[in-house]
């Protein structure tokens, strides 16, 4: 996302400056096209800086392109006629563009151009000028960004331009941002203390960490008692606000971790929870799903790059099939011989997990594989003071969808009915004509297939390596055991509880210690309630 912002800015800038310059506050006598040409020819830094402020003074939207090019070192003048161009490299030559309109003006040899030299102070001047310019931009989003830039800069010189911009502003949201920017500028200016106290209130209403920093600096520096008091009460207000959002962020992270745990554990809730099979290769089923995603993306990249946005949708059924097939094979050739011998099942499936890991390591190599995020999975947005990334949000949604789908399968389909019948009373189910071995195999395949689906989602947030599954296996078992064996709702609640508890412990105990504390808590919990949070009662409980 961080890389995306400048890019978006550039695009927007290009769009805007390509549009005919009908901006506010344009002084008719100053012709930007003429001023821009003053960059041409050898000249001192001071002269360049003067041109920058002259350009900024025009208030013309179009000069943004030239200024940005200047800052980025893309502004050149032609040696033959000292005309100024924006140039980009094209092979050995440069393609040149008009500095204001951005129209192409052909290509020239490298030797024909001379770069307009800049230094940091000029770059800063350009940035400031761009901020002022964009305060008057047509696009409200751009004006808002300009206000935000000015807010973080807190430049006392900007109070007056901001006042003008606020007066002209029509969009209430942008106006608020501009007022905040003005307040931040007022705090560091030499304006009267009452005005500063008012500014502190504005910042308190904004209530984020940056305001807090500005207010703290102000409170430390100011000599005026009333203003200081206003700043301090503002600081207190912001701090409680931040504390609230911190809690919210923790809950959010916890839900996010919980959804990951849920995804990893939900297949296990079937194989372990419903069937009672200890599948230590469960993590490897997740890993296979992640590698399926990788392969799908590789194939798409090579053959049909346009489909990349749909790569996850394509990978989902495939991952289900791959992991499900491996699960089916495991059940038919290994696990069915070990029913009723849980410890042996544990060992044998652990052996399978070693084999699968090594197989993947041999085929794909031991290092992490790059699985790309489609566009809808990348980026983030803000809710209040917390940042929400799309991939985490989608994974929570996805986990809940998978959970709901599984509930439906178990409760509303013939297969689900037969599964429940077989797990509750195998002999009676067999007497009713259910092919119990077949149901066992399908149940195991279903659990494994769901692990594969989880792998598709986890490939978006975790490293896709042969060890991917190992990291989840213990956590998954903890979730299932904690939630209560044989109860899908228990798995849901268990996963979310563990996720949130984990994230709330982290700030106090650190990530690793937090995890240890959670493990210890679960161990203690199992002592207290050996059958989990939602223990099954009545006739289904084994002796």
């Amino acid at each position, binding site marked *: 996302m961080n890389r995306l912002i400048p890019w978006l800015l550039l695009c927007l800038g290009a769009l805007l400056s390509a549009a005919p310059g009908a901006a506010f506050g344009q002084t008719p006598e100053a012709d930007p096209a003429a001023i821009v040409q003053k960059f041409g020819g050898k000249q001192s830094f001071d002269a360049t800086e003067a041109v920058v402020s002259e350009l900024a003074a025009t208030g013309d939207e179009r000069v943004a392109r030239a200024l940005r090019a200047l800052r980025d070192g893309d502004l050149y003048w032609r040696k033959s006629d000292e005309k100024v161009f924006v140039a980009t490299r094209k092979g050995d030559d440069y393609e040149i563009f008009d500095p204001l309109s951005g129209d192409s003006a052909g290509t020239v040899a490298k030797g024909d151009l001379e770069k307009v030299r800049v230094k940091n102070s000029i770059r800063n001047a350009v940035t400031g000028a761009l901020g002022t310019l964009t305060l008057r931009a047509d696009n409200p989003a751009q004006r808002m960004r300009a206000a935000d830039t000015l807010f973080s800069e807190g430049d006392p010189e900007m109070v007056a331009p901001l006042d003008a911009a606020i007066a002209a502003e029509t969009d209430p949201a942008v106006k608020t941002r501009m007022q905040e920017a003005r307040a931040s500028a007022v705090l560091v200016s030499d304006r009267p203390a009452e005005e500063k106290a008012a500014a502190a209130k504005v910042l308190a209403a904004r209530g984020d960490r940056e305001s807090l920093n500005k207010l703290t600096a102000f409170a430390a520096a100011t000599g005026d008692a009333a203003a200081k008091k206003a700043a301090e009460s503002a600081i207190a207000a912001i701090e409680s606000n931040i504390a609230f959002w911190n809690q919210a962020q923790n809950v959010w992270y916890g839900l996010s971790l919980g959804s990951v745990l849920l995804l990893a554990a939900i297949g296990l809730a079937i194989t372990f929870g419903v069937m009672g099979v*200890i599948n230590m290769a469960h993590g490897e089923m997740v890993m296979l799903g992640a590698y399926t995603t990788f392969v799908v993306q590789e194939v798409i990249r090579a053959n049909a790059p346009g489909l990349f946005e749909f790569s996850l949708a394509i990978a989902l059924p495939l991952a289900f099939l791959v992991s499900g097939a491996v699960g089916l094979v495991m059940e038919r050739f*290994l696990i069915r*011989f*070990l029913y009723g011998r*849980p*410890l*042996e*099942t*544990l*060992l*044998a499936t*652990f*052996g*399978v*997990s*070693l*084999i*699968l*890991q*090594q*197989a993947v*390591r*041999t085929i794909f190599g031991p290092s992490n594989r790059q699985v790309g995020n489609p566009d809808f999975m990348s980026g983030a947005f803000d809710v209040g003071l917390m940042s929400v990334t799309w991939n985490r949000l989608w994974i929570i949604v996805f986990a809940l969808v998978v959970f709901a789908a599984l509930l439906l399968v178990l409760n509303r389909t013939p297969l689900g009915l037969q599964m429940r019948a077989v797990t509750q009373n195998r002999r009676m189910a067999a007497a009713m004509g259910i092919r119990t071995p077949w149901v066992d195999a399908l149940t195991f395949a279903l659990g494994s297939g769901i692990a594969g689906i989880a792998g598709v989602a986890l490939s978006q947030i975790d490293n896709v390596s042969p060890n991917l599954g190992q990291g989840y296996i*213990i956590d998954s*078992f*903890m979730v299932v*055991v904690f939630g209560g064996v044989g109860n899908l709702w228990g798995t849901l609640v268990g996963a979310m509880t563990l996720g949130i508890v984990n994230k709330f412990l982290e700030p106090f105990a*650190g990530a*690793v*210690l937090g*995890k*240890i504390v959670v*493990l*210890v808590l*679960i*161990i*203690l919990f*199992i*002592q*207290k309630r*050996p059958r989990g949070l939602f223990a099954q009662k009545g006739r289904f409980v084994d002796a």
Partner: protein
Amino acid sequence: MILARFLGPRVFILVAIVLAAAILVPASNLLLPASHPLHVPSYLVPLFGKYVCYALLALALDLVWGYVGILSLGHGAFFALGGYAMGMYLMRQIGPRGVYGNPILPDFMVFLNWKELPWYWTGFDQFWFACLMVVLVPGLLAFVFGFFAFRSRVTGVYLSIITQAMTYALLLAFFRNDMGFGGNNGLTDFKDILGFPIQAGSTRAGLFAASCVALAIAVLFVGWITRSKLGKLMIAVRDAESRTRFIGWRPEYVKLFAFTVSAVMAGIAGALYVPQVGIINPGEFAPVNSIEVVVWAAVGGRGTLIGPVLGALLVNYGKTVFTAVLPEFWLFMLGGLFVFVTLVLPRGIVGTIDHGFDAFRATRRARAAEKGEAGGQDAVPNPAE
């Protein structure tokens, strides 16, 4: 001889072989010239020593898994804790010879800018104290852990998983630098033990002999326990826990005793292991290590006393060979071994042979009875019955 009769000839032979190795291997390494065909090269001595420690660890697991039916997936943790206790002693013995030359603080603490030794490092400059800790730390952990687990009747797979969670938690903990155990790198760079330089051939030979003696004593000890009345109780708990409880015994105490003793044995194995390999790091806590121990015992045959020892030696020899020749192949082998042992050879090598032998005797007896011969002379009454 009474001992031999009590334990059976096989155990006696095993003990004799182990004790013979304790004398012969060091002797051939130290006394015979390098050109002699029976000379054991120096690099093999610590390798063999490592195997012997693993055998001791497998035997410890056999006590709980084979005789009490507790599948612990956390025995690697007790092994590593014993190893760390010994490692801390060896660390303190380095003294001012470390890279930073600090007479008190080990190198990694100097590196982390620690000013003084943490309280839990005090006393580890004394060998006796370290030895005490080798026994106490794993024993205490197992006691507390087992007390809670067995009291609330956590059994079977649940117990396996929480033991695995225990070693996993310790793995995470020991990876942390501020735990004060060297973090990721663990403890290494040892110089000497009890004043003997640790790299010297004679020290290594001595450590090897000590490991063998420890193994022999452990075999006799486990043999004694399992053939005592308590051992019968253990097997009763393994085979029919509820019934044992209904008769009036307290299975949780039997389990707790076996688990604690077993953990202490694992700790001793770890303590003997560390000076021979020269390093202990958190990797020893990895759940995979603990599970590998299980496969040693399973391959050899659990509940057979000599099986796990044999299994540990065989599998680790195989590991050494395969990781040298076909490193890629080893995990396939190990994984396949798990599947093979559980599916085809659930009794392990020794157990299968025993079973086959019993079956053979039973058929012969039956045939003899059919022929009308009087009773069959080979129907020797079993002293255990």
